[in-house]
C-alpha cells in the first residue's frame, strides 16, 4: 500500500482532486483550520514570540516600552542570585528524574512485562499518582515530611525539618515528584515492551543469551524510539516542574525553579515583565533543543 501511495498515477489523481473541492468544502476548511491556526497563534506561539521580544525591554506592564538589549540577561546572570539557585535546582531535578526515577520506571516495566499474578494490582498502584495533580502531591508531601507530625520523622526517629531546611528540601521534593514520574515512565515502557516482537527474545534465548543479555543487547536497542520519547518527557517534566514546589512554599527558600521565577515576576509584588521574559526565554531555548530532537525522531520514524 505504501508503494501504491507513491506511484505517479496516484499523485496525479491527487493533484486533480485538489482542484475539485467545492465552494462549501473550501469554506469548511478555511473556518476549521483557520480557527485552529488562530487559537494556536494567539495562545501559544504569539505569546512565545512576544516573550522573546519583551525580554529585550525593561517593561513593567505600565511604562513605555524601552529597548535595553541584553541587559536583562546580564542582570539575570550577575545580579540575581535566585537565578543560579533555580538553574542548579532544575539541573538536579532533571538529573534525579533522569538517573533515578526513569530507570526505576523502566525496571518496573521490565519486571511487570511477564505473566505475573497480581500484575494489574502492581500496575495500578504504580500509576495511581499519575492521575493526581502535582499540587495535591505537594500537599500530601507535607504530611509525610512535616517536622513535628510528619511520618518520616516519626518512623526514623529524626527531627529534621525536611521541607524548611534549604539544603535538603529540594531532595525530598524531588522524591515526591519521582513518585509520580515513575508511574508515567512505567506505562510508556510497558506499552513499548508489549509491542516488541516476542520472536526477538526467543531468538536471543535460543542463541544462549541470558535474560539480562537479551534485554540489554536485543530489547533495549529496539526500544530506541520509546527511549527518546521518555527522555523528552523527562526533560519537559523537569523544566515544567512548578505546581509541587508552589503548593509547598511558593518555591522559595531552597525550592527555587526557573518556572517559579517567571511566575513570581508577574503574579508577585514586583511586576517585572521584561526581566521575567528573559528567564522565560532561557527556558524556551533549553526546551526547544529537546523538542526539536524529539520531533525529528518522531517524524523520521513515522514517514
Amino acid at each position, binding site marked *: 500500500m505504501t508503494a501504491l501511495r507513491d506511484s505517479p498515477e496516484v499523485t496525479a489523481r491527487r493533484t486533480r482532486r485538489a482542484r475539485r473541492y467545492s465552494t462549501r468544502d473550501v469554506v469548511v476548511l478555511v473556518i476549521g483550520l483557520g480557527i*485552529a491556526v488562530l487559537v494556536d497563534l494567539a495562545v501559544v506561539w504569539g505569546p512565545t514570540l512576544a516573550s522573546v521580544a519583551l525580554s529585550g525591554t525593561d517593561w513593567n506592564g505600565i511604562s513605555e516600552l524601552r529597548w535595553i538589549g541584553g541587559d536583562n540577561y546580564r542582570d539575570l546572570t550577575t545580579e540575581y542570585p535566585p537565578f543560579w539557585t533555580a538553574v542548579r535546582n532544575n539541573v538536579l531535578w532533571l538529573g534525579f528524574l533522569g538517573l533515578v526515577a526513569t530507570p526505576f520506571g523502566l525496571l518496573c516495566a521490565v519486571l511487570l512485562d511477564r505473566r505475573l499474578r497480581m500484575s494489574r494490582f502492581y500496575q495500578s*498502584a504504580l500509576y*495511581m499518582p499519575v492521575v*493526581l495533580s502535582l499540587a495535591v502531591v505537594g500537599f500530601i508531601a507535607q504530611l509525610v515530611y512535616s517536622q513535628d507530625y510528619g511520618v518520616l520523622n516519626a518512623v526514623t526517629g529524626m527531627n529534621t525539618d525536611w521541607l524548611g531546611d534549604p539544603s535538603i528540601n529540594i531532595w525530598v521534593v524531588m522524591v515526591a515528584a519521582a513518585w509520580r514520574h515513575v508511574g508515567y515512565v512505567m506505562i510508556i515502557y510497558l506499552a513499548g515492551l508489549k509491542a516488541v516482537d516476542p520472536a526477538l527474545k*526467543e531468538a536471543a534465548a535460543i542463541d544462549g543469551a541470558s535474560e539480562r543479555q537479551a534485554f540489554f543487547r536485543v530489547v533495549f536497542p529496539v526500544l530506541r524510539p520509546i527511549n527518546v520519547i521518555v527522555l523528552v518527557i523527562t526533560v519537559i517534566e523537569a523544566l515544567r516542574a512548578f505546581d509541587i514546589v508552589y503548593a509547598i512554599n511558593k518555591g522559595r527558600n531552597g525550592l527555587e525553579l526557573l518556572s517559579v521565577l517567571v511566575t513570581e515576576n*508577574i503574579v508577585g509584588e514586583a511586576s517585572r515583565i521584561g526581566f521575567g521574559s528573559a528567564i522565560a526565554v532561557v527556558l524556551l531555548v533549553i526546551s526547544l533543543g529537546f523538542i526539536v530532537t524529539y520531533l525529528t525522531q518522531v517524524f523520521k520514524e513515522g514517514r
Partner: protein
Amino acid sequence: MTSTLTEPARTSPAAPPPPSRRVRPLRLLLHVFLFLVALGWLAPLALAVYASLRPYEETARLGYFSLPETLTLDYYSEAWTQAELPKYYLNTLIIVIPGVVLTLALASFTAFTIARLHLPGRWILLVVFTAGNLLPPQVLITPLYTIYTMIPLPWWMSDSLSLYDSYLGLILVHVGFQFGFCVFVLVNFMSTIPEEISEAAMVDGAGVWRRYWQLTLPLCRPALAALGTLQFTWMYNDFLWALVLMSSGDKLPVTSALNNLRGQFFTDYNLLAAGSVLVALPTLIVFQMLHKQFVAGLTLGSTKG
C-alpha cells in the same frame, strides 16, 4: 500504536520461560519486591486519607504515624460546606467540559485535514502544533497574561469585563495548549484507518465535512475516548493557569482553590488532607472506571503506529 488500544493477547506459545525449578524462588523474590514497591506507592495516599479522618489536636499530639483515638468525617463536611468545595467543583466543570469538547472537536478536524486531505504544508502545521504543546507554560505566560488583561469582553461573557479573570480565558488557554497533543495523536490514529473508505465516499460525491463527520469521526471513537479521559484529567489537575489568569477567588477551579484551605498564619493539615482527598477523588474515580482509556491515551502519544 493501535496495538495499545486493543491490547493484543501475546500470541506466542513459547513466551513464558520454560518452568524450571530454579526460577521459583526468584519469582517469589520478584513478587516480594513488587509488592513492597506497590505498598510504598500507595502509602502516601493512604496516609492522606488517614490524616483527614483524625482531629487536628490528636495528630498534633501524637503525630500522623500513630494509632487513632477518634475517627471523624468532620473535616470532609467542613471542606464541603465551609470551604464551599461544591462551588469550586462547579467552576471546574464550567471550564473543563467546554475545554475538552472544544479541544477534541478542533483537534479532530485539524487531524482529519492533515491525515486525509493532502494539503500542501500539512506536515509543517503538524510540527508547529505538536511543538507548541511541549513548551513549558511559563515560556508564554507573561505575554499571555498581559494580552488577557488588555482584551475587553462584554459583561455577559465575563464579569471582570476582560479576558483576564474569566472562564472563557481559561477555556481558551486549555484548548490552545492541549490541542497540539490531540492533533498529533489523532493524525497517527487516522493514518491507520484504511484510506479507501474516505476515497470511495469522495468518488460518491461526499464533501469534506461529510467525510470528516460521518466517515472518519465514528471510526476514531476509541482514540477520542482515550484522549477525552486524559484531557479531562489534565485540565482538571491544572493549577498554574488558574493561578495566573484568575484573580477572583470565587471563580477558581477546585484544584487551585485547594490553596485557600491554607490559612494565612496557621494551616490545619488534616483539613488540607481532606480537601486533597476530595480534589483527587474525581480523577481517581475516572482512572478506576476508564483505566484502559487512560493508559491508551498516554501511550497513544508516545508509541506511534
